[in-house]
Every structure is written in C-alpha cells, then in structure tokens.
C-alpha cells in the first residue's frame, strides 16, 4: 500500500524545501515556539473546546462537571447485572490485595505489595500485559543526569505542560521518585538504551527543558512491560493472575471500606466475587471510547472501566475535561491508522509540514498545542495533505533525521516503525509519513493522593485511570513514569493497609443500587450499561442477520 502517485507528487513539495530547512536547523534556527498567550489562543482549535461535544454530568460525585459525551455515557450508566442477583455470601476468591488491571501500574503495584508480604490477585480484562503500557514508545522521563538536570527542572516542565493546574504534591512525588524508578528498572534487568560506558541515553520530549527521556530503542513501554510482567510471573506462589476477568463493580462493607470486587469472566460469562482486604484500581485509559469520533492509539480494552466503578463507589473525577490527542498518529495507510508515531521522531529533528512543504508550527510544542495547530492547519487554514481515503494529514519529515544524524539512523532508532511502514511499501528514511492527531491519553481521572489513597478506605488508584499529576496535559515520557511511581506507591500503601487498617465487614452493593436509582430518577435509559468492557466494532450488515443474538451493551451474549 505504498503512496499512490497523486500523493507522491505532493511529497515533491517536501523534498523541494528540505535542504533549506535542514540548513536552518543546523544553524540553530527553529520555527519560533509559541508564547504562553499564543499557546492559549491555539488551544481554542483543540477538540476539548468544542462545546457540542460535551455535556454536564447529571449524577454522582462530580455532578455538574462538563465533560465529553463519551465520558458522561460511561459514568451515567447502570450496572451490567442486577445487584439482587449477586450472591455475596459465596466468595470465589479471597486475597490480601486485589489489583484490577494488568498493565504497568497494576503490575508495579502487585510487585511492591507482594514484597511487603501481601498475597496478591491481579484481575485483568485481556491478557496480562495487554495494556497501553505495552504500546508506549518514546520513553520515560527522569532527572538522572547529575550536573545537567534535577527534579526541580522536571517539576517545572510537568507544570508547564499541565497548564500550571497540576496537583503539586502528586508532581513532587512523580519527579522525586523518578530517578529511583530508573534504578529499579536497571535492577530488574530492563534493557534501557545506554552508551558503552553505561551512561543512560536520553532525549528531549515535547515541552522538556532537559534531555531526560530514557528509552529502550523505540519500544520503551514494551520493554518495561515485558520486564515487570516477567518478574510478576516469577512469584507464582504469591501473585495469582486471573486473565479475561474484568471487574464490573467494587464491593463495599458496612464500615464504608472497599473490600473487593465483582468480576465477569469474559470466556464463560460467569460473575465472581473477590473478597480483598485492599483493592487497587489500575484500569488504564479510555481511548476506545473514540471521543468525538477520533481514531485512537490505545489497546482494545481501554474503555475507562475503573472510572465507572470508582465513580459509583463515590470517588470524584478531575481533569477529565481535557483528553490528550497525540499530535502524530499515522493517517496512511488505512491499516496503520491511529497508530502512534512517537514524539521522538520530532525530538530527532523531523519537521511537521503542510501540503506546501512548509512549517506552520514548532515541532516540539506540548502535545495539546501541537495537536491543535495541526487540526487548525488542516481544517481552518485548509493546507492539509489529502489522503486517498478522504482524510487530511500533515507531513512528518522523517528523512531529515537521516541527513541530520547520518544514514541508518532512522532504521536504528525507530526499528519498530521502520518495519511496520516497510511492510506497507513505505521507507520512512526516504519518504515522509502522513500524520494527524489521534486520541491518545486520559489526562485526568479518579481523585487520589500522593499515597495512592482515595476517599474510600481500602481503595487505591494508580496509573492512567487517576487524575491530577498531569494537570490538563501530560508531557511525553511522564506516563510510563506515572504508572511505575504511583503503581509502586499504591502497592505499598495497599499492602500496609491490608496488614493494619483493614476492617473486615459484610460485603454489599448498596452504592450500586443507590446509583442505579439516581440514574433512573435522572431519566437515563435502561439500555445504558457500564463498564463498557469492549468497544463495538460490529458490522451493521452482520447484526441485521443476527436474529436471535443479544448484545448487553457492546458485548455479544
């Protein structure tokens, strides 16, 4: 599926301007970065600011909060089952710490809880490791370069990216724990890219003032996820894994403490009761809600389940009014659409260009500003590159990297994407890529503190499902850091809680009944159930012929 002739013709515009642009870069001349005021103005073109795409929540702890329809839809939804049908006297699983979610945050929590002596049960929706962590590419930020960087500068960058509204304690924790996370990964045998003398290789990311993004080739997330997953597999006596068993609701007891969860076996459709002394929610992101109809970079199960369950248990949400669109998602070929092209490509020098082969934005603005600029150029200004499928895109001039850093650099630094595009007949060291913003990250989420605690004792939060540390916009490389920092903290805190403050009680689902009632009073139609569990990619023509099939929400029964 190589570039068709009409698109190859447009590439000539890029090639025509390339020499001049390379010369400018080598002379240190970059496209001017935006001032804080200019950033604010540009953000008006960001999908978050589209008023028709949002409404106010009508129920629950964050009632009145104006967020995207797709988030309201999963928060204002009934339980998937009737609470009266659940037998809470028969427990299928009992454990010290229940970790809901098997990605980076969940696995880090499991490891640290286990090290504290807790018995851990990880309940995952798909396989262990099927998570957004696996797909993260660019890197993991940490101030480790003594003499050039420190957590002070990291703190500044996180705040600047987050529009200065981040939770200061969470950011403090993130940046001060960061160096130890790198040491921990090295200790676990993670193959982060290093110089021959052992020094960590680091790069810039969007919005960073120091090169502090550590990476493992272009598959940092996969390398981290594989490593910590392998470590969890080395503790079979104390970490139990239940795959294809997503949680659908939390269990509370009469003391108001969280004491476990209801799971749904995706293979057999059974419901299980897990009694746990402490519960960690690490359910990750929500890209598969396809907010505002955008394509996404997320894994198949990213449907924001933890938001729904914790919201019903009384946990409010914050910073959910902004969703991160990654500026550079592949928009050609169709098979690769939505796929994340790491910011590292821009960090290595590649320009973003319009159909004329000209720059219209500095390529390393923070993501929200960068995405807004590309959307504006393609829609308002009308200088997008037309794709054969009738979409618009901008050029990401990867061949520049070969010229700036020498032949072979692209294949060496971005092997994953090089192979992927080569399969489609596009050699990204010779031809630029076509990109467009794609839904990428849930900046906000559940309210939690720097110990991973929520307002419900026994319930802890870690990772993308939580909100506050990134403010209104996450910087590249801080998500892998977030999941490991707060995953470890949640694991430690949950284990400690299970050994001291845990108060056993009688399991109940009163919060679910009460919330279902609140929704009924608000007129929410009974067909709306959550968590969604899996997105709906069914073929309408097929559904017409499925005469005797039931769909419970999006799931075929």
């Amino acid at each position, binding site marked *: 599926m190589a570039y068709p002739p009409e698109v190859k013709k447009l590439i000539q515009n890029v090639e025509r301007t390339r020499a001049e642009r390379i010369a400018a870069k080598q002379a240190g001349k970059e496209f001017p970065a935006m001032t804080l005021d200019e950033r604010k103005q540009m953000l008006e073109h960001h999908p978050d600011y589209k008023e028709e795409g949002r409404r106010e929540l009508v129920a629950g702890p964050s009632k009145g909060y104006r967020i995207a329809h797709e988030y309201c839809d999963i928060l204002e939804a009934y339980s998937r089952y009737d609470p009266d049908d659940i037998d809470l006297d028969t427990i299928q699983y009992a454990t010290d710490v229940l970790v809901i979610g098997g990605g980076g945050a969940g696995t880090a929590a499991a490891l640290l809880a286990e090290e504290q002596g807790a018995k851990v049960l990880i309940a995952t929706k798909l396989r262990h490791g099927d998570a957004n962590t696996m797909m993260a590419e660019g890197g993991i930020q940490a101030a480790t370069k003594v003499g050039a960087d420190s957590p002070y500068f990291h*703190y500044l960058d996180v705040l600047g990216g987050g529009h*200065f509204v981040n939770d*200061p304690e969470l950011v403090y924790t993130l940046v001060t724990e960061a160096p130890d996370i790198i040491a921990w990964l090295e200790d676990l*045998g993670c193959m982060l890219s290093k110089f021959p003398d052992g020094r960590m290789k680091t790069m810039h990311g969007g919005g960073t003032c120091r090169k502090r993004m550590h990476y493992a080739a272009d598959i940092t997330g996969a390398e981290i996820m594989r490593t910590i997953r*392998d470590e969890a597999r080395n503790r079979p006596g104390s970490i139990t894994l239940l795959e294809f068993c997503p949680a659908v609701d939390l269990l509370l007891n009469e003391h108001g403490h969280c004491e476990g969860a209801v799971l749904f076996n995706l293979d057999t459709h059974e419901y299980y009761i897990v009694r746990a002394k402490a519960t960690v929610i690490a359910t990750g992101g929500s890209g598969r809600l396809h907010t505002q109809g*955008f394509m996404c970079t997320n*894994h198949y199960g990213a449907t924001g389940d933890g938001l729904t369950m914790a919201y019903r248990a009384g946990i409010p949400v914050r910073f959910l009014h902004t969703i991160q669109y990654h500026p550079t998602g592949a928009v050609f070929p*169709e098979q690769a*659409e939505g796929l994340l092209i790491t910011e590292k490509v821009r960090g290595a020098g590649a320009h973003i260009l319009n159909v004329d082969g000209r720059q219209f934005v500095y390529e390393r603005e923070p993501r929200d500003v960068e995405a807004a600029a590309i959307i504006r150029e393609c829609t308002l200004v009308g200088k997008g590159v037309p794709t054969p499928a009738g979409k618009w895109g901008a050029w990401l001039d990867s061949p520049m990297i070969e010229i700036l850093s020498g032949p072979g650099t692209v294949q060496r630094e971005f092997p994953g994407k090089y192979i992927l595009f080569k399969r489609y007949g596009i050699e990204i060291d010779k031809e630029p890529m076509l990109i467009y913003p794609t839904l990428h990250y849930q900046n906000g989420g559940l309210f939690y503190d720097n110990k991973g605690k929520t307002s419900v004792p026994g319930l802890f939060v870690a990772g993308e499902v939580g909100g506050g540390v990134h403010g209104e916009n996450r910087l590249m490389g801080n998500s892998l850091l977030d999941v490991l920092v707060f995953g470890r903290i949640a694991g430690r805190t949950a284990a400690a809680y299970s050994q001291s403050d845990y108060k056993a009680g009688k399991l109940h689902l009163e919060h679910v009944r009460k919330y279902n009632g609140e929704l009924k009073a608000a007129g929410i139609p009974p067909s709306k159930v959550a968590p969604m569990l899996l997105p709906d990619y069914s073929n309408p023509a097929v559904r017409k012929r499925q005469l005797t099939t039931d769909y419970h929400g999006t799931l075929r029964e």
Partner: protein
Amino acid sequence: MNDTQALKITVNEPLVPIFIMGKRYLIPSSLTIQKALEYAGYQLVRGVGCRGGICGACGTVYRIPKDHTIKVGLACQTVVERDMRIAVLPFFPANRKAYNLRQVLPEPDIFARFYPEIMRCMGCNTCTKSCPMDISTMEYISAAIRGDIEKAATLSFDCVMCGLCTARCPGELGQYNIGILARRLYGRYIARKATHVHEMVERVAQGRYEEDLRRLMAAPGEELKTIYTRREVEPELSQDFWEPKSPEHL
C-alpha cells in the same frame, strides 16, 4: 476516524474471499486480518490486544493458494490476500521456569540448566520462519546454547512473545521465554551500570532538592509561569556532556 468508520470507507472497495478456519467470507481488500474477522462478524475477545503490532496477542498462521508453505503474521498488521486461509493462535502453552533474578548468576550454562530442552534444537530454522517480527530466532537460541547471553539478548530484543515459534518447534523449545531470560540477565548483570542514576537517587534521598521544590510548589501562578518561561532549555543538538549556564537548582 475510528475502527467502525473504517467500515464506511470500505463500502466501495473490491471484496476478496478469505477462509477463516476453513470458512469462506468476502472481505474488503484493504482490511487487516483482525479487521476482517470483525467485518465477518466475529466479536474478538481472544487474539486481540494492542492492535498495533507489539503485544503478541494475535499471532496468525496462514497459507495462500497453490503454495504449500505456512506463512505467519500478526493479525492486526497483516492485510488480507485473495483466498488466504487463516487461523489465529491466541495462546500456546510454553514451558517457563520461575526464577529469582537477584539470586541467579549470568553463567553460560544457565539456559541449558533452566531449559534442558534447548539441546533438542535441531537447527531446522522453523522458529525463524515462524516469527512475525523477522527475528533470527534460531540464531539467538544458538547463542543461548553457547551461553552468549549478550547476543541472545540483543538478537531477541524485538520479540513480542506471540508464541508462534514455540507452537511450531519440533524440539518443543519455548524460545520466547529463553529470550526474555537472556534479556533480563543482560540488563542486570552484563550491561554496564549507570552510576549517575544512583548518584541522583542519593541526592534526592538526602533532600538536596527539597527546599527548591517546596518553594516552587508554594509559588503563586504568575511567579511560577515566569520561572518556567525563563528556564534554560538544553539545545536540540547538544551532546551528552552538556551543562547549563547556571549551576543553580542542580
């Protein structure tokens, strides 16, 4: 543009027949095997993960007509071909030995000890031919047999642990578990340590940045924005030994 909207675009596309576990379906020719399954009416629960070529959930074997060879690919990355016959392999039970990384030593015979079946490698190269990531699987197994941990680690680095190699290996090796053992041993014991990381951990533990950070945390919005705007930015083309003009806050 989400996955369901991709269906609308394929409306005018030519359809090609493919055989899903022997059953014939007509599929728009630009779809990947994974989207073809959904187009045909499957709701995927197994055999799907990241949908982006890195998680290893969707290892697939297939054949094309008039060709006896068995081809492999990831369902999320492989575009359908006319008359292809496919089967997705969402799971394969490979042998795995639990170990304590802090207690094992990177000795050359570790692979033979943990996975004695590694000696049953026949050198047939089926594992290499079964790899959807173009890894020289037999070469890294060969390195492991020789005890060359570094080579086994670097050669297996792109492995997504899909299990196709294990499924087809006549010697019944679990290649991908051997690979990750090599990589973790390399990362912990053989790669040189980054001493600056531990130095920074020490500095943080001693509270070196405490006062500076607390001041930032308490700074009013406008002051914070000013400090942010004035902060020195490391140049794009700096070398690794770059140092800022000011020694402050380091």
